[in-house]
């Protein structure tokens, strides 16, 4: 990890994890009459980096947004530390959650610096930290340009800074690598390793299987809204996915070019 990252993530150290685990029990989420997520149960702990895999439409983003308390489960429950329920305690929980979504969650009309300054103001984070995050994400030169003029990769780097600014205990990432060049991807995984070392739980929804060996601890595989595999990542993510399929968790997940295939599936009530 670079010195700048070390310094910045060191800011997490005086802040102990407010949340150390999350348990999903029989979680189902419906849109109309369709199940997007069906009876998913699992427990995740702080210090784990978990990959959430699945085809398009498998329910990954829906499940992640439910963990972020943005969607309420229709059946089952999601509890942090066995006490905080995402429905009942969402306001308190959100202080400790960081979300990197597929969309940037940024204001395109504002500059990168203004976006981070606004997040800092709303999260009671000292404004002086904005400059450090801009440096870490290599956006100093573009800091005063409107985000609308940023490339996808630049927006994604700024999203990472926005999500980590308040030093969350749990970081939920929805395809954070999309549009990132190799250097930025490496930076992302370094930051994730820093978060893991500091006891943070990181959940990463991804289609990319070319993940540095050792970056991930667990792999959850969703298919048609169901959790079909929950395995420790041993070796590469690709090997772990092969192992899951060999155990019978397969079913249409043909791969090419390092990405899972695009097939849509729904569980119909």
């Amino acid at each position, binding site marked *: 990890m670079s010195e700048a990252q070390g310094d910045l993530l060191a800011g997490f150290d005086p802040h102990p994890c407010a949340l150390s685990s999350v348990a999903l029990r029989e979680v189902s989420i419906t849109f109309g009459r369709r199940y997007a997520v069906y009876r998913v149960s699992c427990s995740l702990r702080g210090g784990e980096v978990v990959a959430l895999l699945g085809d398009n439409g498998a329910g990954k983003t829906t499940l992640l947004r439910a963990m*972020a308390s943005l969607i*309420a489960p229709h059946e089952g429950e999601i509890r942090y530390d066995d006490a905080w329920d995402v429905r009942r305690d969402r*306001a308190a929980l*959100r202080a400790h959650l960081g979300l990197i979504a597929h969309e940037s969650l*940024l*204001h395109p009309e504002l500059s990168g610096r203004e976006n981070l300054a606004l997040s800092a*103001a*709303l999260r009671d984070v000292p404004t002086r930290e904005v400059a450090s995050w801009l440096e870490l994400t290599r956006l100093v030169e573009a800091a005063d340009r409107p985000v609308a003029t940023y490339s996808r990769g630049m927006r994604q780097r700024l999203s990472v800074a926005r999500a980590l600014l308040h030093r969350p205990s749990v970081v939920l990432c929805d395809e954070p690598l999309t549009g990132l060049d190799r250097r930025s991807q490496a930076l992302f995984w370094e930051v994730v390793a820093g978060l893991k070392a500091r006891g943070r739980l990181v959940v990463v929804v991804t289609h990319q299987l070319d993940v540095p060996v050792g970056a991930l601890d667990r792999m959850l595989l969703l298919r048609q809204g169901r959790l079909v595999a929950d395995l420790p990542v041993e070796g590469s993510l690709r090997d772990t996915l092969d192992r899951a399929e060999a155990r019978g968790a397969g079913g249409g997940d043909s791969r090419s070019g390092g990405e899972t295939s695009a097939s849509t599936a729904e569980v119909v009530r």
Partner: protein
Amino acid sequence: MRRALRTWWALVGRDLRIEWRSKEILYTGGLFAVVLVTLFLFSGFQDRAVQAQAAPGVLWVSIALTGTLVFGRTFERDREADALSGLLMIPGIAGPLFAAKLTTNVLLLLVIEALLVPAVFLTFSLQHVGSWPGLMAVLALGTLGFATLGTVLAAALAALRMREVLLPLVLYPLVIPLLLSGVRATHALLHPHADGDWTDWVGVMIAFNALFLVLARWLFEEAVDHGETG
């Protein structure tokens, strides 16, 4: 409370900064309002007396039509790049977010009205007003109530595909009593000897404002935070 005020201030600053840079709402809203007034002028109100009778209605119809443009657009900005989800991840944001959106909507509408009122006075040859402070109070109350309901409905409809069509369909029937009170109060102010007391209508407008504010504050969090729940 201080934190809520700081959050409100930061959000109002963000909205106004974005509008100051683009001037998108002010330009489109202002132009739309002026076009409406001009169209009304050339639609048959040739007689001076008829013009004076029709002016309050023209003014409030123009405010109502322009308002829906403003309310829809201020929320649409937060949907771009899903910035609204980013905001919702901040604890305790619902109250300050509602207050900030309402503040922005009221300010933008008042700026447009600052253009609209002289335009109506000029084009409809109005010369006498019973009480200028009274007219300003009527406009302020009408704008606040209309914006309160418009803000909460724009938030509730923000997640729907046909939100631009639905907003006026849902908003106008609910806000008609307030707009009618505004029309009657304005009429009484412009024709002090021909109509009732404008202060009676102001009382009605205050009552509607109180009702809308209580309802909106109560409904806003559910509307904005549960929009994704299927």
